[in-house]
């Protein structure tokens, strides 16, 4: 058998810089590496000495795709440190903004970044000619998510109005009513998206590697910004004990740290959430999962994107429900009072691609003394590497282009935020 050498420099259609490196000869795998080459930005050091009022503004810049997730985790960490509890209105608005984050990110990933892999295209651009209806729908869904975020937060990327303890400005009720109508129509779009995913599903590689799945879990709802840390290998953990799960360590091929818990690696993200909480999905999302034949637990990492499609339906339903509650109770101006105090606070949310942790220690003046951020993709890098270790030997007899493409698809399935993971 010939020698195989694969080197993908700066993998495309993912956020950030990562390489794939494979070497094999005589049908034997010698090396397969997922390398993270992204430049570190040192956000934990940037945050030192910053006043609480500027902290989420800076830390949201860790990521341009999931900046609402970073803002939310950051605010919740500061609020935990200061002992602040949000009002019901402020909390509902925060959850609604979070639905906008998931909707936009999942549509971007599934229909713009992943779909070309299944349709033999290099990007979404040629699909405008061949699959115009779906692309127009995808642009419509993304735009709706942006508009919902704009109404609530001033903008989608790096939100402005969410502040420690509440909101600097409330949304306009008429704008919420208008966006609700578009969300109702978007439910049909989200179900069409599920149908598109179903039509592509037969092309999903048949690869299963059971592992540990970690996500937030809540007794009352499908958890995005509530609950405790849960593991499919057993046990729940209070947020403050996240380091018992993450156990970060460095490897030379990655400028992002790795994590491990019960096994050599664990997985976070939409599939982890689905595996741990699928029974709590809202009705139409449950129906969507059933139409796709999804039943937890699913151990194929390529199904992460399928779970994202199901979650897209869920978050549109959730957004409509929250708007109804907000409009029924009426929007009222609320004064935000913040009294800084020394102490530590941990905020954990489910970013579109998994569990995101911000941990801050403040002094009496409300300035950060130390900060620690752990990013979902950072937790998934080891899982990607272990998937490579299992997948590559099984496909070595395939043509080189197919091996390369399958490994690329595997990384993309995780929807990695690589620069975010290095931060």
């Amino acid at each position, binding site marked *: 058998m010939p020698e195989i050498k694969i080197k993908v420099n700066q993998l495309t259609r993912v956020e950030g810089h990562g390489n794939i490196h494979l070497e094999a000869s005589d049908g034997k795998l010698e090396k397969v590496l997922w390398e993270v080459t992204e430049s570190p930005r*040192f956000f934990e050091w940037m945050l030192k000495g910053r006043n609480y009022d500027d902290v989420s503004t800076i830390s949201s810049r860790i990521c341009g795709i999931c900046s609402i997730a970073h803002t939310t985790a950051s605010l919740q960490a500061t609020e935990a440190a200061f002992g602040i509890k949000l009002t019901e209105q402020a909390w509902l608005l925060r959850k609604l903004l979070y639905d906008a984050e998931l909707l936009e990110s999942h549509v971007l990933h599934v229909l713009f970044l992943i779909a070309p892999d299944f349709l033999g295209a290099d990007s979404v651009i040629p699909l405008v000619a061949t699959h115009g209806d779906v692309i127009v729908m995808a642009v419509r869904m993304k735009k709706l998510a942006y508009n919902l975020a704009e109404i609530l937060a001033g903008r989608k*990327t790096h939100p402005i109005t969410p502040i420690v303890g509440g909101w600097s400005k409330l949304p306009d009720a008429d704008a919420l009513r208008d966006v609700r109508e578009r969300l109702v129509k978007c439910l049909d779009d989200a179900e069409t998206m599920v149908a598109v995913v179903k039509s592509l599903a037969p092309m999903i590689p048949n690869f299963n590697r059971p592992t540990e799945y970690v996500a937030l879990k809540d007794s009352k709802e499908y958890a995005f910004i509530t609950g405790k840390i849960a593991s499919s290998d057993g046990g729940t953990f209070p947020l403050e004990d996240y380091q018992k799960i993450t156990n970060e360590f460095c490897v030379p091929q990655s400028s992002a740290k790795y994590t491990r818990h019960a096994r050599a690696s664990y997985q976070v993200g939409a599939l982890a959430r689905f595996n741990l909480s699928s029974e709590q999905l809202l009705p139409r999302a449950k129906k969507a999962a059933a139409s796709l034949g999804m039943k937890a637990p699913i151990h194929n990492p390529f199904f992460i994107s399928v779970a994202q499609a199901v979650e897209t339906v869920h978050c549109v339903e959730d957004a409509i429900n929250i708007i109804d509650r907000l409009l029924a109770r009426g929007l009222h101006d609320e004064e935000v009072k913040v009294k800084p105090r020394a102490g530590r606070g941990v905020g954990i949310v489910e970013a579109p691609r998994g569990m995101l942790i911000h941990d801050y220690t403040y002094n009496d003046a409300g300035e950060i003394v130390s900060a620690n951020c752990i990013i979902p993709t950072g937790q998934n890098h080891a899982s990607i590497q272990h998937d490579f270790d299992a997948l590559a030997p099984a496909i070595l007899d395939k043509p080189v282009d197919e091996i390369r493409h399958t490994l690329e698809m595997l990384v993309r399935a995780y929807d990695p935020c690589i620069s975010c993971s290095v931060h």
Partner: protein
Amino acid sequence: MKPKVAFFDFTSCEGCQLDALNLDVGEVLGLLGAVDIVNFREVKTDRSDDYDIAFIEGSITKESEIPRIEAIRKQAKVLVALGACACTGGVNCLKNAYTADELLKGVYGECASYYNTIPARPVSAVVPVDAYIRGCPPTTSEFLKVVKAALLGKRPDIPNYPVCTECRIAGNVCVFQRGGTCIGPVTRAGCDALCVSSGRFCWGCRGLVDDPNTNSAKDVLARYGLTLDQILERFKIYNSYSEVSQCQK
């Protein structure tokens, strides 16, 4: 022949690239009709090193990024800095308050030697830049405005007056009158004072206006009992590379 356009990302959150393309369907089709996007790693797989206009996102924070940006500069007829990290260095330059050793050992501990970093800097500190699309993130409308100007070989009409002007037009109560601090008086407008209109203040993400009225800015601080230090702490969030941020009280 349509102009060939390329996007490149350096050290950044990659939000600008995706935000720039937050277009309506008509705008997407208009853009695709006017240019050929030949290199855009975040969105497409095929790439070409033959391009006319290069959009650069991110700042320069590693030795290996210097030859890469130099090669892009050599190829591109027009090089556009996209977003605060590329234009002013952005938040990335906050790390320049520490030495590389402090940062690497602080974050990576015993594994520090695996990695490297140099003081963060804007693109213009390494190679000449032809146009700037400012902000963190830039607005989609300004992105389109600069693209159109680049295609016509013209200079885009970007405001060169402070955010205060747009803030007045928006009808906002002055942040200083509300008891806060704001970088608006010295920051280049073009965002329609979005942050102040959203109930907050200006962080200065679009960088300094060309000829800031520093005397007037000092008067404002004096009137509201603020020190230069108080305002500089916030100014440095996006502009710590600027020589103004080095100024003493």
